[in-house]
């Protein structure tokens, strides 16, 4: 138990482990299962295991004593590159199917087949329609919805030509992609292509495989993810900066608590409505509860946080332990990052685990499947909330333990509303942001995104890296579990500016923003691309992403989606640090290409650095190089850099 506590920096999770130990609750969590998995296979870690055909599995001896090639003759380079390309395909598939479900819902609005959803932001829909070249004169908003959805469907199934939103990228970048042959075509086609070229006996040139991989990743960032963000904004409403709360302290002892977990917002939007339904609130009262609290985990949480201010219960590694509070009456999951281990934990508590997506089932008889039907979504959400209410009375009162930890945060920043925040309503431009960088108040920008990873400490790397960056006047934008991690430590509040360097603090205090901006869920990394495109358009910071003083990071990455994101960010020209190495280190050629060679092609490359402060220093050095290349002024308050910040980390 002591070991488990050491491997999270979330005091709420630590408190629950202590409670479990003291009360003899012995349930396996990811922490135990990670230990049980040790030692993990070195061939897999190095990317030298190939399971693609049935002559294998083949392994390459990293010491050159044994096999240098698989049965088919595939080298370490081929095997590592193929495996990585398949990880990209999976990541792109996940984000893009998320986008597809948004398009599907939009289409149902257009055909009038659902009344539960509306176009809450017609302006956004019209803007996207214009980009798609749809003539909207004389069309009702419903008709526009149908046409936009059909155009978006085409971006998935397109056989010839490119993704529509690629045209949002800077001119120079578009030309670079065209020259390298990586401008993404139809999203589905790119995923199919990656599965094809990595089959036994197709592509075996690692550089060619990685080039295909890049195109597949760009189909995610500039396709599936961007569609999910933009059409989500049109349908569910444009996020606005909103105050809310984070961590397990948001759970209420005397209310029915429902946790939504996963990634897609289609059902959770309705869950918000159902949790505020007077009839259901009355039923909750009848059962002795004072109300209904909805809380979220992972990106489903981020989606309804930024649009409705729904509080966040935790991030990826909190999903199992949250049930140990004894007050989660239902956990409602959709897709992605949903641990199969949830079922065992739900059996050891009173929590009802409910799956809702046709893509995600549990084999366990006690996990209920109530499938989302967009045509009848609100009623389904009501049914789920009713189950939670009915379960309220089944709580074991002796096992209730709600951690006190709860922090405030502000979420809901977008590429669009950054105008208002930095420029003010009367001067809605990116000029103030650009000027702050040019004048040396803000050193540059960094996107710190991604998962939790059991291989490290929950939240520690996110926090240490972000602290180091803001201390050095780097304005940080975040999405996903990274944002939740830093929110727990109050970096996503204006008060967080006290940890910022003098220049960044000045800007934050002048306009009242946190030093760390929450841009949404993991598909909303597309917002970062658009924000930076706007920065370029505003002028003074170069002509391409690779000119801007900006860096990306995924310090606690674990999923294939993170690989897809990393690749579309690097291929867009942004230097990006991953916490642990991608599984390619057994191939010197692939590793060298990712860690340096990519710069020749894309103007940016990866770095793999497990130490979050060292990683932050790499990002700062990169930003400084870009400032120098742009001949920007020295930092306004340049000071001797203090030693690495660890006051928040070593708690």
């Amino acid at each position, binding site marked *: 138990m002591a070991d488990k506590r050491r491997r999270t920096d979330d005091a709420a999770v630590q408190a629950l482990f202590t409670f479990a130990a003291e009360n003899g609750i012995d349930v396996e969590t990811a922490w135990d299962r990670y230990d049980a998995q040790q030692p993990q296979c070195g*061939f897999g870690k190095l990317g030298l295991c190939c399971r693609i055909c049935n002559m294998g599995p083949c392994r390459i001896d990293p010491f050159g004593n044994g096999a240098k090639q698989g049965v088919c003759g595939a080298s370490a380079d081929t095997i590592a590159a193929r495996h990585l390309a398949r990880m990209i395909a999976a990541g792109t598939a996940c984000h893009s199917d998320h986008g597809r479900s948004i398009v599907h819902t939009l289409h149902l609005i257009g055909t009038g087949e659902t009344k539960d959803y509306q176009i809450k932001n017609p302006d956004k829909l019209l803007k996207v329609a214009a980009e798609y070249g749809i003539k909207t004169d004389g069309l009702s908003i419903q008709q526009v919805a149908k046409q936009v959805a059909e155009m978006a469907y085409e971006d998935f199934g397109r056989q010839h030509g490119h993704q529509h939103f690629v045209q949002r990228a800077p001119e120079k970048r578009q030309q670079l992609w065209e020259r390298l042959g990586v401008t993404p075509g139809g999203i589905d086609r790119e995923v199919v292509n990656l599965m094809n070229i990595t089959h036994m006996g197709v592509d075996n040139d690692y550089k060619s495989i990685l080039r295909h991989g890049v195109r597949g990743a760009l189909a995610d960032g500039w396709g599936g993810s961007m569609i999910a963000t933009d059409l989500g904004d049109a349908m569910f409403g444009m996020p606005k900066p909103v105050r809310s709360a984070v961590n397990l302290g948001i759970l209420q002892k005397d209310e029915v608590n429902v946790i939504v977990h996963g990634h897609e917002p289609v059902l959770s939007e309705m869950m918000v409505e159902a949790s505020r339904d007077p009839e259901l609130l009355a039923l909750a009262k009848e059962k002795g509860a004072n109300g209904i609290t909805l809380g979220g985990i992972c990106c489903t949480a981020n989606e309804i946080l930024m649009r409705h201010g729904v509080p966040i219960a935790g991030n990826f590694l909190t999903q199992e332990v949250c049930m140990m509070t004894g007050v989660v009456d239902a956990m409602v999951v959709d897709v992605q990052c949903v641990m199969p281990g949830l079922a065992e934990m739900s059996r050891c508590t009173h929590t009802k685990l409910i799956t809702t997506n046709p893509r995600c089932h549990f084999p366990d008889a006690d996990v209920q499947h109530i499938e989302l039907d967009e045509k009848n979504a609100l009623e389904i959400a009501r049914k789920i909330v009713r189950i939670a209410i009915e379960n309220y009375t089944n709580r074991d009162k002796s096992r209730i333990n709600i951690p006190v930890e709860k922090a405030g945060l502000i979420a809901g920043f977008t590429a669009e509303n950054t105008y208002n925040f930095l420029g003010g309503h009367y001067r809605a431009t990116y000029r103030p942001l650009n000027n702050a960088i040019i004048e040396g108040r803000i050193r540059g920008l960094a996107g710190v995104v991604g998962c939790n990873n059991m291989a490290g400490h929950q939240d520690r790397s996110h926090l240490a890296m972000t602290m180091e960056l803001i201390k050095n006047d780097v304005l940080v934008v975040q999405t996903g579990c990274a944002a939740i991690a830093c929110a727990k430590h109050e970096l996503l509040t204006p008060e967080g500016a006290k940890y910022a360097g003098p220049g960044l603090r000045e800007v934050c205090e002048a306009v009242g923003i946190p030093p760390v901006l929450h841009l949404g869920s993991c598909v909303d990394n597309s917002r970062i691309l658009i924000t930076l495109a706007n920065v370029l358009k505003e002028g003074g910071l170069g002509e391409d992403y690779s000119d801007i003083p900006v860096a990306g990071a995924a310090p606690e990455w674990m999923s294939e989606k993170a690989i897809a994101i990393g690749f579309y960010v690097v291929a867009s020209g942004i230097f990006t640090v991953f916490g642990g190495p991608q599984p390619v280190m057994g191939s010197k050629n692939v590793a060298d290409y990712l860690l340096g060679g990519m710069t020749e092609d894309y103007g940016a490359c990866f770095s793999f650095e497990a130490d979050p402060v060292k990683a932050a220093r790499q990002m700062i050095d990169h930003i400084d190089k870009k400032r120098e290349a742009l001949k920007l002024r020295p930092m306004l308050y340049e000071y001797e850099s203090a030693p690495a910040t660890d006051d928040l980390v070593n708690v």
Partner: protein
Amino acid sequence: MSRTKSITHLKVLVNPANCVGCRSCELACAVAHSASGDLYAMAQAGERPGYRITIEPYDNQPIPVHCAHCENAACQAACPTGAIYREEANGPVLFVAERCIGCRMCLHACPFGVITLHPLGAGVLKCDQCIERLEQGREPACTEGCPTGALLFGDEDDVAKAKRQQSAQRLLNMPAEGR
């Protein structure tokens, strides 16, 4: 006191039925004997520390074959320079590269074939039972690296005892006519 004194009763024990042929033991051995001791750094540096345990395929079964640290070690007897030696009567049979002249007599003498040529052609590879790790209170890299329990670091007496117990149980469960 000899550094091997306290651990002479512990041995690397093999349970071939549990071996799935993942070769994690070989990898762990190489990492433990590399300059950096780090898997990624070693792979990137192109270092070739080699491994001193082998997963030998036999009849489509993976079998871990490792140094038995024999009581009357043929390799030690064959070595003309004392490069292969013991610090303690029952301690592991150790190898010091500086004294090795590369005659490979040990390789020819070993009845198990577990002494192999160094991948860089300089001398031989010989299991040292991870003597340095043992001094730190850790177990050998190969047994620690084994995910299935095919390799264990333990007391031979305990293992013999466990086997006698299994044997006794089998006898007890034997049908009457078979007794």
